[in-house]
C-alpha cells in the first residue's frame, strides 16, 4: 500500500504544523525581534506555497486508507488543492499581523496549518467517525485562532460564541450520526449510500440526517446554525476571519456534498427542509447585511446568504448541481479572499473596518478600490465575474430540476444583496473622507496579488470552461459513489 504517495498533502501539512509547533517551543517569549518574525512569515509562505505543489502533485491520486474510512479521489484532491490555495492566499495577507501578539505568531501558523490539515482530512473522510474527528479538529483550531486577537474583548467574545454554538452544533451532529449509525448499521458513507435511499422515509433516518447536516451547516453558516458568523467575523482577527470565510467554507461545501450525495434524493421531506433552509438563509443573510456598518460583519451576513445559494445547488442533487457547487466553492474562495484582502490592507493595525472608513479609497488606492468593486460585484453575482458564473451554473442545475420559483427567489435576493454591496462601493468610490488620508502604499507583491485576484475573478467569470471541467471531474466520484 503506497499510502505515502497519495496522502502526500496530509503528511506535508502535518509536518508543517509540527514544524511550527516546534518553533513555538523553542522561541523565547522575551526576544521576538522583527527578524524572527520575518523568518516565521517567510517559512509560512514557503510552506504554504510548497503545499500547493504537493497537492497538485497528488491531484490524480485515488485510493482508500484506514480500512476505507478515508477516501482519496479526485473530489477530495481538488478540494485539497483549493484548501492549500486558500491557505496560501491567507498566509499572503498575514505579513503584518499587528492584531496578534508577536509571541504568538508561531502558534498562529501552527493552528492555521493544523486547521488546514483537518479540513483536508475532512474532505477525504468517508466514515462518520473520520468526519466527526476532522471536523472537531478544525473547529478547535479555529476557536483558538479567533480568541487569539489582541483586542481581547472582541476576540474572546467571538471565541466564546463560536465555541458554544460550534460545540452545540457538533453535539447535535453527533447525535444525528448515532441515529444514522443505528439505523443503517454502518458508519461508512458508501455503505450508507446503499441502504439509505430505501429507508429515507423513516423518522430516525430523517432526524439523524438532519441532525448530522446540522454540524455541516454550522461550518457553512446555514440558518439556523449561522448565528456565530457575524460575531465571529467581527471579533476575530481579520486574517482569521478571512480564513473562516474562505478555506473553512470550501471544506464545508465539500463535506455537505459528500454526505448528501450518499443520502441520495429519495426523500421529498429532506429536499423540503433544504429548500426552506436555503431560502431562509439567503433572505435572512441578505436582509441583515443591509443594516451593517462593519464591513466584516457585512461580509459575514453575505456568507450566510451565499450558503443559501450553495444549498440550492446541494438540494438539486445531480451531477450538474454537484459540479456547480464545486465551482461555487472556487468562486467563494476567490471573491471572499479578495474582499478580505482589501479589509486587511486597509486596516494595517488590525482594527475592524467600518464601511464609511472606505471613503476616498478610489483616490488612496485605485487598485484596492477596483479589487473591492470586482469582488463585491462578483459576490452579488453580476457578470462577467466568477460569482455570476457560479450562480449561473447553480441556477441552471436547479431549473433543470424544475425549481424555477426557487431560482426567482434567489435572483430577488441577488437584487437585495446588490443594494448593500453598492452601499460599500459607494463608500469606496463616492464618499470623501472627513480629513484627507495619505495614499495607500502597497508593496509590489501585494499589488501583484490584488491584480491577480481581479484578473482571476473576471477571467474565470468570462472563460470558465476550464474550471467547469475540473469541477465536473471532481463531481464524478460523488455520482459513481452512489
Amino acid at each position, binding site marked *: 500500500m503506497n499510502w505515502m504517495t497519495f496522502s502526500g498533502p496530509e503528511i506535508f501539512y502535518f509536518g508543517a504544523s509540527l514544524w511550527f509547533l516546534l518553533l513555538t517551543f523553542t522561541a523565547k517569549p522575551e526576544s521576538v525581534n522583527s527578524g524572527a518574525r520575518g523568518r516565521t512569515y517567510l517559512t509560512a509562505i514557503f510552506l504554504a506555497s510548497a503545499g500547493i505543489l504537493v497537492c497538485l502533485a497528488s491531484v490524480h491520486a485515488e485510493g482508500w486508507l484506514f480500512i476505507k474510512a478515508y477516501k482519496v479521489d479526485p473530489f477530495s484532491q481538488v478540494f485539497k488543492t483549493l484548501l492549500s490555495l486558500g491557505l496560501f492566499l491567507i498566509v499572503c495577507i498575514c505579513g503584518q499581523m499587528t492584531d496578534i501578539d508577536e509571541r504568538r505568531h508561531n502558534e498562529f501558523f501552527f493552528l492555521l496549518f493544523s486547521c488546514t490539515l483537518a479540513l483536508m482530512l475532512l474532505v477525504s473522510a468517508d466514515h462518520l467517525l473520520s468526519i466527526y474527528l476532522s471536523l472537531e479538529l478544525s473547529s478547535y483550531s479555529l476557536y483558538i485562532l479567533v480568541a487569539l486577537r489582541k483586542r481581547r474583548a472582541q476576540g474572546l467574545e467571538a471565541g466564546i460564541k463560536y465555541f458554544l454554538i460550534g460545540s452545540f452544533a457538533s453535539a447535535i451532529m453527533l447525535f444525528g450520526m448515532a441515529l444514522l449509525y443505528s439505523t443503517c448499521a454502518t458508519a461508512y458513507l458508501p455503505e450508507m449510500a446503499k441502504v439509505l435511499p430505501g429507508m429515507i422515509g423513516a423518522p430516525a433516518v430523517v432526524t439523524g440526517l438532519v441532525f448530522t447536516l*446540522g454540524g455541516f451547516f454550522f461550518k457553512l453558516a446555514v440558518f439556523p446554525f449561522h*448565528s456565530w458568523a457575524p460575531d465571529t467575523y467581527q471579533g476575530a482577527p481579520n486574517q482569521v476571519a478571512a480564513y473562516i470565510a474562505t478555506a473553512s467554507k470550501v471544506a464545508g461545501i465539500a463535506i455537505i456534498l459528500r454526505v448528501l450525495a450518499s443520502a441520495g434524493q429519495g426523500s421529498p421531506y429532506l429536499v423540503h*427542509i433544504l429548500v*426552506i433552509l436555503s431560502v431562509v438563509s439567503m433572505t435572512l443573510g441578505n436582509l441583515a447585511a*443591509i443594516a451593517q456598518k462593519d464591513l466584516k460583519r457585512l461580509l459575514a451576513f453575505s456568507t450566510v446568504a451565499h450558503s443559501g445559494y450553495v444549498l440550492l445547488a446541494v438540494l438539486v442533487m445531480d451531477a450538474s448541481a454537484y459540479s456547480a457547487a464545486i465551482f461555487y466553492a472556487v468562486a467563494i474562495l476567490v471573491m471572499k479572499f479578495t474582499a478580505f484582502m482589501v479589509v486587511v490592507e486597509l486596516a494595517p493595525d488590525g482594527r475592524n473596518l467600518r464601511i464609511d472608513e472606505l471613503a476616498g479609497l478610489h483616490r488612496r488606492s485605485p487598485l484596492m478600490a477596483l479589487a473591492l468593486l470586482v469582488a463585491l460585484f462578483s459576490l452579488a453575482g453580476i457578470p462577467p465575474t466568477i460569482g455570476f458564473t457560479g450562480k449561473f451554473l447553480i441556477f441552471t442545475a436547479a431549473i433543470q430540476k424544475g425549481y424555477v420559483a426557487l431560482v426567482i427567489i434567489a435572483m430577488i435576493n441577488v437584487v437585495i444583496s446588490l443594494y448593500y454591496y453598492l452601499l460599500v462601493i459607494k463608500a469606496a468610490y463616492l464618499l470623501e473622507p472627513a480629513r484627507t488620508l495619505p495614499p495607500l502604499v502597497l508593496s509590489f507583491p501585494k499589488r501583484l496579488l490584488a491584480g491577480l485576484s481581479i484578473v482571476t475573478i473576471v477571467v474565470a467569470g468570462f472563460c470558465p470552461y476550464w474550471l467547469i471541467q475540473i469541477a465536473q471531474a471532481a463531481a464524478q466520484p460523488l455520482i459513481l459513489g452512489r
Partner: protein
Amino acid sequence: MAGSPAHSVDLAALLAATALPFFSFLAIIVATRGRPKVSAGLSIGAAAVCLGCSIGLLAFHSGLSAPIEFSTSLIASSGLNIPFGFLVDKLNLLMIVVVSTICFLVQVYSLGYMAKDPGFSRYYAFMSLFTWAMMSLALSASLLQLYFFWELVGLSSYLLIGFWYEKWSATQAGKKAFVMTRAGDAAFFIGILLLFIHTGDLNIAHLDSRSALAGVPPSFITLSAILIFGGIVGKSAQFPLLTWLPDAMEGPTPVSALLHSATMVAAGVYLFARLYPFFSLSPTAMSVFLAIGTISMLLASTMAMVSRDIKKVWAYSTISQLGFMIMALGAGGYFAGVFHLTTHAGFKALLFLCSGVFIHRFETNDVFELGRLGARRMLIPMISMVLGAAALSGLPPLSGYFSKEAVMGSLAGLPDHVWLAAGLCGVFLTAYYSFRLIFILLFPRERVSGEPEGAHGAAHKAEYGAMALPLIILSTVTVFLGFFETPLRHFIGVAGEVGQAPTWPHTAALALAVAGAAVAWIEFGRKGAAQIGFVERIEPLHRLFAERWYIDHFYGLLVNRVVDRGIARLCELNDRKVIDGSIDGLCEATVESGRVVATLQTVMVQYRLLAIFAVLVLLALYYYY
C-alpha cells in the same frame, strides 16, 4: 417614370421648384447665417426660380387633359408602400403659380420690411423652408406626402410666428398655432391612416378618380372625410380651431401676408379642392363642411367688426373668407372655391403688405393710431389698401367681386336658402368691417400729426421702394384678375357647373356690399361721425365679439385646468406617490426588516442556541405533520 423628353423637362422643372428652396434653406442655416445679403439673395433666387418654373409649367400645360404623375417609392416595407412623387394637374398648376408669386413678392417686400432685423438670415431661411414645404405640398402625389409637407408648413408657420422670440406673446402665439393646427392634424392623420388601412392606397389621383374606393362602405368614407377635414379646420383656422390665426399676427407682417392669409391657411381649402371628388362622395360630410364654413365665416366677421388692430381685422377677415371658400366647395361650387382662393390670395396679401408698410413706418398696429399718425399720406399703400378692401368687399370691377359672385352663385344653387342668406349676411359684414377700417384710416378724428412723407432718408427710400413694388404688382393683379374668370373657368375645366343660376343673388350680394360700405361711411367716414360702430354700442355683444366668443377661454380652461392641473397632475402624483411611493416603500420596508433581522442577530448566545433547537423542533414537527 417618364421617358419622353417633355416629361423630363417637366420633372426637372418640378424638382427645381421643390428642391431649390430646400437647398437654399440648408445653405442659409449651415453657411450664410452671418451674411444677410447672401442669404436673402439665395432665398429670393430660389423663389424666383420657383416662380419661373411654375409659370413655365402653367404655360406649357395650359391645355392639360389628364394629370401627370411622377412617383417613386420612399419606403416599402411589406404591406406598406408609400409612394412619393409629383402629381401635376390644373388645380395645382394654378396653386403653385399663386404660391410662388406671393412667395416671391413677399420675399422682395421683406427686403425692405426686415432690413434692420438682426435675424435677417434666419428669416430668409425660414421663408425658404416654407416655400419648399408649400410648393411640395401643392405638388404632392399622395395623401401621406401631402401630410408630410402639411406638417412642415405648420413648422415654418410656428417658426415664423415666433420669429421675434424675445417677445413672449409671439412665442405664445407660435406655440398656440402649432398645437391647435396639430390638434386638427391629429384628426387628419387618423383619417389618412383609416383610409390607408381600408383602401391600401393613398394616391390622390386614385382617390379622386374613386378607383381606390370601390367596395368601401359609405359610412366609412364619411368618417374618414370628416377626419381629414379636421386637418383643414386646423390649417385654415375654421371653427372650432379658429383662434390661433389672429394671434399668429404676432409674426412679422410679410409672414402674415404670405402664410396666414394668402397661401398656408389656404392650404386647407386647397386640400378640400384637391380631394373634392372624394369628399363629394359623402353628402353628409359635405353638409358638415358647409356648416363649419358658414359658422366660421360669420363668427370671424363679427370679431373683425370690433377689432382695433389692423392686422387682426385682416386676420379675422381671412378666416371668414376661407369660410366662404369652404362654403363654396361644400355647396358644390368647385370653381367658385378655387377662384375665390386665387383672388383672395392676391388681395389679402396686398392688404397685409399695405398694413405692413404702415406698421413699419409708424410702429403701431392700432388703426386709430395709424390714422392719427397720417397713414393716408402714404399714397401707394393707401390706394392699394382701398383697392384691396374694395376687392375684399366684393365691389366691381375688382377681382373679389367676380369670385364672390361665383361663391354666391354656388350657394344659390343649394335647395336650402339658409346658406345663401348666411352668405349674403357675410357679404354685408365683410364690406362693413373693411370700410370701417379704411374710413378710420382715411378720416382720423384727431388732427393728423407727423412729418411729411419725404422727410426720411435714402435708406428708408430704398426700403420703401422694395416694399412698394410688390404692392403695385399685387394691386394690378387685384384689378385685373377678375376679368380672367372665364379663361380660368375653362382652364380648371368645370364649365358646366355654373348652370343658369338666377341672377338675383348676385344683385343682392352687390347691394349688400354697397350697403355695408355705406353703413361704415355713416358710422366712420362722414364728417362728424363718432367712429363708434353699432356693435360697440351694445356692450354684451361687443364683449362677446372682442373676446372671440369666449373660444379661447374654453381652450384655456381645457388646457390649464383639465389637462395640466387635472389629468397631468394626477399622472404626476400617481408617479410620485403611488408608483414611486410603493417602490420606495418596498425598499424602505426591506431595509427596515433588514434592521430588525440584524438586531435579532445580536441577541445573547443562549438565545441563539435556543433558536437552533427551536428550528430543529419545528422541522421535526413539519415532518410529522
